């Protein structure tokens, strides 16, 4: 079995030696460079552009403004496509909005000319801070793309809360955060007649193909999207954002290939963010800790409706995580003059479970109960919202194995009860859950006379290990050594696969790879049975085996090169699609985890430092122990950022993001990350998908912030309900 082994990442050497070619690194003849010009006001209208000075600069090829930008076919776009701002009108919705594109023969010349574009505005009234606009909170129109309503209720939570003996009634807030992948958004676009090729940093090549084809009014097959390596996405490369479209627009205008790479500052205003949330939580319980009532009302920041709609679905986990008879949740959006928010690693779960699992900690304190015991007292044996069994749920094992590894039993219950010299020590825990998403995906496999299987799927590797784990799945299915399997991705010429979002790549694509390999084997068997030289006429597939490139049957064996030679073929090929069936109707599909954090808080300065993290996860069958662990420690690290550091600061007066760089927007550095121990509890969930896997890219992010917040309470006695937790929150 190659699946499960801690195989090194196949792209690792390419990346660390600089040979992996990212979107901005494809050398093209005659490449021109585009630079975005951005608004400096938060609301209003563009009156005019003064481009004379900019146009006179050396090397300038075009300055594209709403006055002359090619018209895009935005009316045909689906609701999910980002269709603005794309220079199609002169309205200003937010500060930092793209208002013009400058194209020149070199980047420096484009930058210089862009700095000389002057814009006259008529300033409008702007609402820059969500908290000022709660009165405008609106019901989302397209919650979960219309798959369900934004609100739900079971039982009578208000009545049950009113009479509950123990109550928690609190409000949590989470800030605007930005993804900050290492690789900025980057696109090279090239037109050849009506055919468009783009090299772009994206989590979804198929979505990019559809979006660009729609907006430019060409057939999807005339748009090729190439994205072999992506330097991190975390959600901000899920949609096809304006910079990719504007690069293609610029290439069409100047009749040359055009490269457009965002600056770090532009990454804060061009491709979404995690919206600020305000979450009202009510928990009611009896004296034994049994939950009687839960209410979770979430408000999340939105842009103006003309840009689309995004809702941070904070309360979905609240519906299903605990066995409580009376539960209500709601989701509202609050429009402000900021850009469109988007998915950011565990959208909804990361922010919502921070609130829920902090509130559960508060409830445990009110009940004088051990936090894990409280969770076990409310353990949901079936999904209480959908009233369906889980395909599998090993959360009990996560609690037990995580607590054992973390030595939870050393925790003394009282706040400020554990110390180490000048440090207050705190231990906290939280539950994690994330849906096990799966979408239709296809793969193709070709086996040639050299005995190497080339497997292709139009999926992405956003730094997660797709190249490696899919090769492992194929190698096992074909009984080939890993060295004889090559996996290719990131090109719309390959069979279609879904966006790498919602932790769905492995649960979607690995079944397709497995199915394609099974189809290839079946084809080989058909060929072998039909081959008169094998004498297997009348045999069935079950009489044959395929191992190390050899078909083995009754009394003899035949190699693939022999089989191909007999029929004068260069290769044999098969393609398969794999898609969800009824499993979602009959089961609730989720991954689970238990997360633990140990913090130290300096008694005098209030400095907060993590000293240990443990996470135990039920992520189904593990394809690669090493890449799985990397996903887990990466997710926990991202969660530590959410807990202690990350916050996008907006100037209330101008609506401008003031810390749009990674010196002033703090993400964790190595010195902030403690030893992280991860456990993957044994599981193999063949109900969820035929490979038995659960997505794990987002799961480890979900419980991290609450575990840290709960540990900070335990260390200091201070309950911080507003992220990030900062020194001033705990300073005595």
């Amino acid at each position, binding site marked *: 079995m190659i699946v499960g082994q801690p195989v090194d990442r196949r792209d690792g050497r390419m990346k660390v030696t600089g040979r992996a070619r990212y979107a901005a690194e494809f050398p093209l003849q005659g490449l021109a460079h585009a630079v975005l010009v951005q608004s*400096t006001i938060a609301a209003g209208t563009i009156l005019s552009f003064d481009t004379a000075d900019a146009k006179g600069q050396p090397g300038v090829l075009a300055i594209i403004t709403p006055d002359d930008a090619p018209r895009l076919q935005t009316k045909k776009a689906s609701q999910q496509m980002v269709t603005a701002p794309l220079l199609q009108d002169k309205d200003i919705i937010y500060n930092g909005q793209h208002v013009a594109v400058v194209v020149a023969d070199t980047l*420096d010349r484009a*930058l*210089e000319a862009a*700095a000389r574009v002057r814009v006259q505005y008529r300033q409008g009234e702007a609402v820059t801070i969500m908290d000022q606009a709660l009165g405008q909170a609106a019901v989302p129109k397209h919650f979960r793309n219309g798959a369900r309503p934004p609100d739900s209720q079971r039982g009578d939570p208000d009545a049950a809360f009113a009479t509950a003996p123990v109550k928690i009634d609190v409000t949590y807030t989470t800030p605007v955060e930005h993804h900050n992948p290492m690789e900025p958004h980057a696109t090279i676009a090239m037109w050849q007649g009506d055919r468009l090729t783009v090299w772009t940093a994206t989590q979804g090549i198929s979505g990019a193909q559809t979006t660009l084809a729609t907006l430019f009014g060409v057939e999807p097959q005339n748009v090729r999207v190439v994205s072999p390596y992506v330097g991190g996405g975390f959600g901000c490369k899920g949609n096809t954002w304006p910079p990719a479209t504007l690069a293609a627009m610029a290439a069409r205008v100047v009749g040359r290939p055009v490269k457009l790479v965002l600056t770090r500052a532009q990454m804060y205003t061009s491709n979404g963010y995690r919206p600020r949330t305000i979450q009202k939580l009510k928990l009611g319980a009896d004296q034994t800790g049994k939950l009687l009532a839960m209410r979770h009302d979430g408000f999340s920041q939105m842009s103006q409706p003309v840009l689309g709609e995004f809702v941070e679905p904070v309360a979905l986990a609240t519906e299903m995580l605990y066995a409580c008879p009376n539960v209500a949740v709601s989701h509202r959006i609050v429009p402000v003059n900021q850009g469109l928010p988007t998915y950011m690693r565990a959208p909804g779960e990361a922010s919502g479970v921070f609130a829920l699992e902090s509130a559960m900690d508060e409830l445990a304190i009110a009940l004088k109960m051990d936090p894990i015991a409280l969770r076990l007292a409310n353990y949901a044996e079936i999904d209480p919202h959908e009233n369906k069994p889980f395909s599998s749920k090993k959360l009990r094992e996560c609690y037990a194995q995580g607590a054992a590894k973390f030595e939870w039993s050393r925790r003394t219950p009282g706040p400020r009860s554990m110390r180490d010299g*000048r440090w207050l020590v705190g231990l906290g825990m939280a539950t994690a859950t994330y849906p096990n998403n799966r979408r239709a995906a296809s793969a193709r496999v070709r086996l040639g006379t050299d005995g190497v299987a080339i497997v292709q799927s139009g999926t992405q590797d956003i730094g997660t290990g797709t190249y490696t784990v899919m090769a492992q799945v194929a190698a096992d299915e074909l009984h080939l050594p890993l060295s004889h399997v090559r996996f290719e991705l990131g090109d719309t010429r390959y069979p279609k696969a879904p966006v790498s979002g919602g932790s769905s790549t492995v649960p979607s694509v690995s079944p397709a790879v497995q199915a394609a390999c099974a189809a290839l084997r079946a084809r080989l068997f058909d060929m072998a049975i039909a081959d008169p030289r094998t004498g297997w006429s009348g045999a069935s597939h079950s009489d044959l085996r395929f191992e190390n490139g050899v078909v083995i049957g009754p009394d003899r064996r035949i190699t693939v090169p022999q089989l191909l030679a007999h029929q004068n073929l260069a290769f044999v090929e098969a393609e398969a699609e794999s898609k969800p069936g009824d499993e979602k109707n009959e089961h609730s599909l989720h991954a689970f985890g238990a997360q633990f954090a140990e913090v130290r808080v300096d008694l*005098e*300065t*209030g*400095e907060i*430092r993590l000293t240990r993290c443990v996470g135990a996860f039920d992520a189904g069958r593990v394809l690669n122990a090493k890449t799985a662990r990397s996903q887990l420690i990466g997710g926990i690290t991202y969660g530590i950022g959410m807990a*202690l*550091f990350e916050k996008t*600061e907006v*100037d*209330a*007066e*101008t609506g*401008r993001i*003031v*810390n749009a760089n990674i*010196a*002033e927007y*703090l993400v*964790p*550095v*190595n*010195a*902030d990350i403690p030893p992280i121990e991860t456990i993957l509890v044994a599981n193999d969930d063949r109900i969820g998908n035929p490979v038995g896997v659960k997505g794990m890219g987002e799961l480890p992010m979900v419980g991290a912030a609450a575990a840290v917040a709960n540990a900070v309470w335990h260390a200091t006695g201070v309950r911080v309900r507003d992220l990030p937790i*900062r*020194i*001033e929150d705990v*300073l*005595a």
Partner: protein
Amino acid sequence: MNPFAYERASNAAGAVAAVAGHPGAAFLGGGTNLVDHMRLGVASPDLLVDITKLPFDRVEELPSGGVRIGAGVRNSDLAADQLIRSRYPMLSQALLSGASGQLRNLATTGGNLLQRTRCVYFQDVTTPCNKREPGTGCSAIGGYTRYHAILGASEHCVAVHPSDMAVAMVALDATVVVLGRLGERRVKLVEFHRLPGDDPWQDTVLGHGELIVAVELPALPFATRSAYRKVRDRASFAFALVSVAAALDVEGGTVRDARVALGGVAHKPWRATQAEAALRGAPATAESFRRAADAELAAARPLDGNAYKIPMVRNTMVAVLRDLSAEATP
């Protein structure tokens, strides 16, 4: 970025002449701050005079027992210097708490003194800022002020100086040696940086074309027992919320002398003279240390976003002084 010319100076007088005679010229040291500002549009010199080849790269012992640091000495080299580590440990600690290894390898002593504020409005050319564009107003007042000043600010500017190194040097009563067209002059570091007042665009008392050639530290025997403590959100690579540099001379349980300076609190590295006065002759107890901190902080005027700095300075100063006095007790 504006087009600019570049020349490399072969001697100090030539460098001074080149910049002094050219209103748009700037000296280029490590470039870790200036080049960022050129990219951001905060600075747009049309001539850069590279001074990194000038012979200012040595740390020398002075006959008085002090130390002379060439303005071109890199932060990494200064932090690792044996003289500095043994005589002025707070300075080595301050340097090592600043920026990252890569930046410290480039950044120079003179350049570190001249680095400009990290005020987010100063760095964003789309927003008004009196320091960047005189007379346009201060966007920070009423805006995002978590990192801003609590001491010595004005209605025109509430920015803070970002250096760690300079805080330790101010505590050590350093002198800046400056070369101008008329020759050398010496300026006490504590008077080198300015408070914002009505003209916050003037960070220092340097005139255009004046070049820092060295920093001199006087002998201070009790500085062998000194420390720099920087409080920040993350454990590395972050600017100070507040910082404290201190040296303590304790004899028989009484403070004979003390040096205290604060970072992250003012437009300049802040020498805590009130605290020092309160400490001299006082018993070396937590109570005295707290009284000293309160004496310094009496003048503090917090903004909307930074009131936390007052208890943070107080607690940190008390902790640093207590740890130093504990070292003094055998």
